[in-house]
């Protein structure tokens, strides 16, 4: 039987081939199936009878891909408990992905599970790329042994690496190591905002990957609008130029009802 491709239409039902526990609250679900995909894009993940949510691809090979999930709310707790053989619907990929600048001096800045969408990008970038990774604690550092290139680590509790913020390390890198041509970032929105500000101060272009509540995934329903941008279609990756104009960046987001609220309220709702 010919294998059907994963498409941006009806979900394709795939069986989980492996559930790898990455850290206490993180697991990667692997599927033995091909997927046309660029780093930074996402798929909609359907657990029949429960819900469907957007997730990035954290592992990508010719015949296998993986989705790394942080247990936060009802859906993600159920998702990390899936086991080999369970059926999951996948549709996509959606979104633009990162605009990868190969031959330049670049830095990748990840906060917590923001490492997931950046991992396949890191694997494509040259060996002299700076990789900065922040997390709550040593336990929450995703993929500790995965990359060929060195990683600068910081933790909130100081249990590994620098005790402090990724922006401390990024600023030091810019001051000591000379300027950068591109910074790619994903993590909590406040972190990405600070990375963006730092890049603006130093005249460095950056790209960040945003998160909003989504429904269709392809730019029609409007659930994920952020300023004039449609996050699922125009993003989820936005460059400096778009970020400068995006008045809701690090400020506002829409709840499921469409009600616009402060980002802190949005994130406390999203983690339920």
């Amino acid at each position, binding site marked *: 039987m010919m294998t059907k491709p994963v498409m941006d*239409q009806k979900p394709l039902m795939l069986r989980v081939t492996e559930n790898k526990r990455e850290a206490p609250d993180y697991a990667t679900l692997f599927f033995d199936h091909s997927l046309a995909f660029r780093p930074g894009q996402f798929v909609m993940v359907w657990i029949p009878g429960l819900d469907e949510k957007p997730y990035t691809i954290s592992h990508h090979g010719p015949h296998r891909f993986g989705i790394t999930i942080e247990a936060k709310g009802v859906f993600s707790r159920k998702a990390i408990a899936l086991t080999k053989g369970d059926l999951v619907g996948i549709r996509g990929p959606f979104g633009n992905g990162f605009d990868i600048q190969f031959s330049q001096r670049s830095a990748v800045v990840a906060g917590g599970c923001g490492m997931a969408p950046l991992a396949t990008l890191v694997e494509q970038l040259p060996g002299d790329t700076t990789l900065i990774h922040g997390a709550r604690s040593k336990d929450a550092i995703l993929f500790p042994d995965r990359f060929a290139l060195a990683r600068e680590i910081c933790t909130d509790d100081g249990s590994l690496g620098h005790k402090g913020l990724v922006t401390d390390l990024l600023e030091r890198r810019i001051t000591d190591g000379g300027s950068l041509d591109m910074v790619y970032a994903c993590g909590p929105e406040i972190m990405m905002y600070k990375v963006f500000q730092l890049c603006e101060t130093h005249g460095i272009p950056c790209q960040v990957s945003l998160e909003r509540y989504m429904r*269709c995934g392809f730019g029609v329903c*409007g659930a994920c609008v952020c300023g004039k941008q449609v996050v699922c279609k125009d993003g989820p990756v936005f460059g400096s130029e778009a970020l400068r104009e995006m008045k809701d960046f690090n400020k506002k987001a829409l709840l499921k009802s469409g009600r616009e609220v402060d980002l802190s309220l949005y994130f406390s709702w999203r983690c339920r």
Partner: protein
Amino acid sequence: MGIRFLHRTLKNPTVLASGILGNSKDILERVHEAGCGLVTLKSIGPEPRDGHNNPTVIDLGCGLINAVGLPSPGYLNMENEWAELEHRDFPIIASIYGGSVDEYRRVAEYVSSKKPDFIEINISCPNSEQHGMIFGINRDSSRAVVSAVKKAISVPLIVKLTPQAPDIADIARTCEDAGADAICAINTVGPGMVIDIESKRPVLAFKKGGLSGPMIKPIAVRCVFDIYKAVSIPVIGLGGITTGEDAIEMVMAGAELVGIGTAVRYRGIEVFQKIADEMEAWLSQRNLTLADIKGAAHKEGE
């Protein structure tokens, strides 16, 4: 291709269908800048409502099936949006819905005070006073809601009809008699269902959903054709319009303006300017105007 519609002049005859984008002033402004003549704010309901769980919108290749479930902050929780919309330089339709005549009236009265250019009532909702029967499939309930809303508002009233009505032209005539200033047709077709045969479950979380896009265009054209014959108020025709030629066809059926929704999926937000340009090119190649072709399909023996 400027066009007069009721009391407003629009830059072209394209309309953003309700439920597509439309969640904030910023995005409406972008749609307007992308060439849309008249944009519709997402439907506003009487209470805060989350809508359904996902999957809510699925592309079937020939169009979409959706059961988003009318999410709304509720009409009393939109002060920021109204404050922003007060300083707009483009016309808007505010779409509203309710579950009873009084809910429609209450929402409409409040929304009217915020001075949208038009109010559209979506009468494809189940009528809680008539055991869940849909308002817009029945002459009496359609008349009741239209006349109640019309008395409560001070802007022109558009009534959006459902193709589920057994005789949509009869409903349109009833709405006109009850005070509607324009008709918008059609809402999504169905409901339909898609079952995933591996998990043996309907794909949509709500199980059933409305169909839109190219697969419903012939139904939409037929409905607009029938409505045009039955009423003398203008008709916004929509359902599956993806190209300028689709829009021309809808105008020939009798549409004054053409609504665009699902085509945003296939041609991006730029679809409004593209369709307006394609309509204009089609007309100018034939030395025709929109007025020449409006309702042209109704002429016999020429």
